[in-house]
């Protein structure tokens, strides 16, 4: 029995949909992966701030300078900068000056002033810096008073290299 027209049409459609037909229209193509499977990790960032020893600000009198040393240590990755700010100081005539220091001792303090609110030079990863905090009572300060100030250290990261 000869196949009817409908059967022939079905056979042609089936052929066109088959893999043979697909292969007939294929073209060459070559490919290579790029940057795949690479893992990029982010680092961390932190700042430790503490006094070196216990600075004494008691029993001060006018023009009697007292100096404490603050230590700032970076933790984590990347480079960093720091910024210092002094707030408070309710006693009239209390002067607070920040000075750069080359080490943890008062004897390491330099005459270079650290400007409050200004960002420092970029520091290397994990570096520790020391800052001298020099306080002086003004000449007109009354005896028996007290004052409080806060040294606020802020750090921000910088690119790794």
């Amino acid at each position, binding site marked *: 029995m000869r196949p009817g027209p409908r059967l022939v049409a079905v056979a042609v459609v089936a052929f066109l949909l088959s893999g043979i037909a697909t292969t007939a229209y294929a073209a060459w*193509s070559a490919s290579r992966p790029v940057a795949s499977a690479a893992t*990029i990790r982010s*680092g961390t960032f932190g700042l430790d701030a503490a006094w070196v020893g216990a600075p004494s600000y008691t029993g001060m009198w006018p023009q009697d300078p007292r100096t404490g040393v603050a230590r700032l240590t970076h933790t984590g990755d990347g480079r960093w900068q720091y910024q210092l700010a002094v707030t408070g100081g309710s006693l009239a005539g209390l002067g607070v000056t920040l000075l750069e220091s080359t080490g943890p001792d008062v004897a390491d303090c330099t005459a270079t002033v650290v400007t409050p609110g200004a960002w420092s030079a970029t520091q290397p990863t994990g570096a520790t810096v020391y800052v001298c905090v020099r306080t002086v009572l003004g000449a007109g300060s009354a005896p028996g008073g007290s004052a409080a100030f806060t040294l606020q250290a802020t750090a921000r990261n*910088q690119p*790794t290299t």
Partner: protein
Amino acid sequence: MRKTTKGAIAIGAGVALLLGGAGTLAYWSDSKPLSSGTTITSGKLSVATKTAGSWAWANGTTTPAFVPGTSKVVPGDSIRYTEVFTVTALGSRLNAQSSFAVPTYSGTNALTTALGTPAVALTAVKTGSGTGTITTGTNTFSISSPTTETTFDVTVTVTLTFDSATAGLSAQDLNAVLQNGAVTISQV
């Protein structure tokens, strides 16, 4: 005459007629080889690594070296992947077109957000003395008429930049894994 003798004569006559008839029915015939010694050679289209891909810091100094999976990026960092491929094309009427799949991240987190979509760049230059020509576009290229084997150097870079505006302590200690990046050259 005996019957057997008559039979033998009849068979002999029949054979003679058949032989004679074969000769009579032949026609002239000649033959020449048409495709003998003809070699059909296929062309070539391939892409292979010429210089293995490597990562490096893209800003600041390049040391210490950036090592994927080990080095840790921070806001403001920029890193770049560079790989050089060799594309080889041969075909009398071959035309080919490149395409580039920008790598994606296998997942999403604050780090992938801070890194953003990778920036890619692709440059292609012809090397050697092949006859193929190359037309370059923005991160694409096409090859035409490499009737002799022609090679091209294709340099691909993928750059990631950690958004320096990443605030507070977000996007720390996370992983971003790249996937599905590919350079493809296809016959058109």
